[in-house]
């Protein structure tokens, strides 16, 4: 007799596979994007089932939400697509290769259950001295803060890379009245929820990336409804917002190396506050960068 939970998990896995396959092989790109967004939502649920609510939040906000908007915006710029033509020999060889990789992966993944996992124990042992009580936040912003700092630089580089492309503008459709009305309600909500997620991050799932993505979603909504002016890299407050996260983070790291005990060493009595400061700055930077990526200035580039 299958338990209800197992049934749910099996359904989820099968649905995930079906959605992934159809999103790749469907005839029209638009359908593919819609399926991809659905795939992202299901993946978020999967993460939640696996006991990783932080990942679930990030996947729902970035994987399903903002990536979907980006893909649709890209679709709006490209002309009609030629019908895909796939020689059967290629499909066959891809299938054989896929099966081979699958076998290799399964043989490599199966023994992982017995592997030693010293890190979760170490993280909980040092949680008291990290300044926060949520292990994921402790890893991201204290134990492995250097990774997070570099990730913020990755996001900055994404913004800069898109800027180099000097994307051409496209005509934005006139906003639907209902959308305008809804966005007036949803945008303030996104600000409140983002603030809540940010605050929660210190003791429960949540944190800068999720909060930033939600905030960006609110900004995108307002912009699409025509209620916000164009976001420009040329305005200095915008640039300050984008750069703020890295500057604060690097500043704290360098100050620690210069005045304190070392690079990215937080003084124990301040570490909670310092982490909160970094998270607030990072949230604003992430929100600004993501909204610039999705709905940033178009026409004015390259002048």
């Amino acid at each position, binding site marked *: 007799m299958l338990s209800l939970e197992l049934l749910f998990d099996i359904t989820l896995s099968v649905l995930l596979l079906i959605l992934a396959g159809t999103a790749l092989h469907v005839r029209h790109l638009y359908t593919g994007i819609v399926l991809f967004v659905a795939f992202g939502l299901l993946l978020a649920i999967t993460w939640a089932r696996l006991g990783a609510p932080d990942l679930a939040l990030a996947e729902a906000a970035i994987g399903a939400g903002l990536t979907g908007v980006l893909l649709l915006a890209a679709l709006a710029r490209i002309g009609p697509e030629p019908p895909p033509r796939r020689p059967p020999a290629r499909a066959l060889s891809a299938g054989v290769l896929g099966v081979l990789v699958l076998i*290799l*992966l399964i*043989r*490599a*993944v199966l*023994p*992982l259950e017995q*592997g*030693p*996992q*010293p*890190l979760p124990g*170490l*993280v909980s042992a*040092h949680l008291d001295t990290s300044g926060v009580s949520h292990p994921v936040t402790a890893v991201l912003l*204290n*134990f*492995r*803060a*250097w*990774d997070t700092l*570099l*990730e913020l*630089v*990755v996001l*900055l*580089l*994404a913004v*800069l*890379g898109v*800027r*180099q*492309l000097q994307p051409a503008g496209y005509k934005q459709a006139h906003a639907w009245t209902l959308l305008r009305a809804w966005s007036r309600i949803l945008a303030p909500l996104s600000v409140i929820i983002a603030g809540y997620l940010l605050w929660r991050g210190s003791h429960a799932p949540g944190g800068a990336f999720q909060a930033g993505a939600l905030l960006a979603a609110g900004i995108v909504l307002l912009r699409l409804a025509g209620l916000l002016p164009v976001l420009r890299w*040329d305005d*200095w407050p915008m*640039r*300050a917002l984008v*750069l703020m996260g*890295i*500057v604060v983070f*690097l500043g704290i790291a*360098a100050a620690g*190396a210069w005045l304190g*005990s*070392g*690079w*990215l*060493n*937080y003084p124990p009595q301040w570490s909670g506050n310092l982490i909160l400061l970094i998270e607030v700055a990072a949230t604003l930077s992430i929100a600004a960068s993501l909204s610039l990526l999705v709905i940033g200035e178009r026409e004015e580039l390259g002048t």
Partner: protein
Amino acid sequence: MTLALASLLIPLATALLLLFLRSRAGAWVIIASLLSLIVAGLALAEVVAHGTQTLAIGGWDTPLGIRFELNLLSALLLTFTALVHLLVAVYAERSRHSQTRDTDYWPLSCLLHGSLAALWLSRDLFNWYVTLELLGLVAVAMIIISGPKAYGPALRYLLLSLAASLCYLLGVALLYGRYGVLDIDLLATMIDANHTTRLALLLMTLGLMLKAALWPLHLWLPAAHASAPTAVSALLSALVVKGPLFILWMLWSRMAPVEVAQPAGLLFALAGIVALLAGGWAALRTPFLKTLVAYSTVAQLGYALLALGLLLRWQQTELSAALWLFVLAHGLAKVSMFLAAGEMQATLGSKRVSSLKGATQTMPIAMFAFAVAGGSLIGLPPSGGFVAKWVLLQPLLADPVHWPWALGVLLGTLASAAYVFRVVALAFDRADPNPPNYNPDAFAQWLALLPALVVWGMALYSEPLILWLTEVNR
């Protein structure tokens, strides 16, 4: 360690400042590179005096935190990165053909400098993944500076680079799942040759080889490097492909179990020989100048691959010295070659090799730079390339069993000589020289010559270089 961190922090802070001020003044970058070079040089002196230093970031020891290690090689690579950035920045600021005026080249090159410095210092598999992401993104962003014609190669590079990152990340995840740690030295003490390890190493190697454009995964490189702005091509060939190579070398020489490394070494060495021949042949055949120089990068990376392979095959750590000498010599020579090629191509008004007809008359200094850099690539004494080849050949010639490998090196040398002389011979054909479109800029040509002179100067410091690099593995 403070000095090394400063060498990393200076370019990063400069990039942020330039972005905030929206400044496109090259002088800032030159000053920052110079400062970073001085600090890196001091760090190198400190390491030579006091030995390897490590830093637990945030005060968290491994396996909880990330570890930085500053050994002789890392310090040398920090210095090399700053030096190359300085040389290229001076050229890019001065030359009107660098295609970098009024672009975001300046902050991006600073970010590239910072990313590389972070990569050289880190000893953590996941942190390396983040630095690889940084390198890939910054390289693509810098290629598309040159406009719509570069979009195709840049997009291909971006997609392949992302696929390679994912391959590498999957390998890291498998190792983490099996051993529960991410620090390379901790892993080296725990690792054994089982299925998971083999697959993880295979995945990481594929990803890194794709990113480093090692044969047979090099096909994206010529188009991407040839379509980038001249100054960017120089940085990409000299530095960006060396980042993944560093991680590959670390993984195999420090971490991989011997019984996996020895058979893999044979494959690496064979791929290296094929890279030498195939890259050389493609460089000999291509009609375009910058593509020729880009294919020469593919061929020259073959030497590094060969040294890595033989190092693993015979477990001879001295060969690390050959590998890193090749990287340093190739980096400097390639900067000179790309800058000279870009300067000549812009002045003579054509991207074709054939337009160089009579270039010794019209642009003698740039052609001289090209030939001098080519001399180091061939391995003519007393250049840096010669020193590297000497260190590589010594163990090969010592034992008659190894002579086939020496034959491979000889064939590779002939191939590099062929493509360098293809250009030089054409340039000496002065009967009917191709007239330049602009007045040749002599000062910019001298700046292109500078790195080539440095690589010949490397021979003067060959003894300490060989000594330091041989000690790297101990």
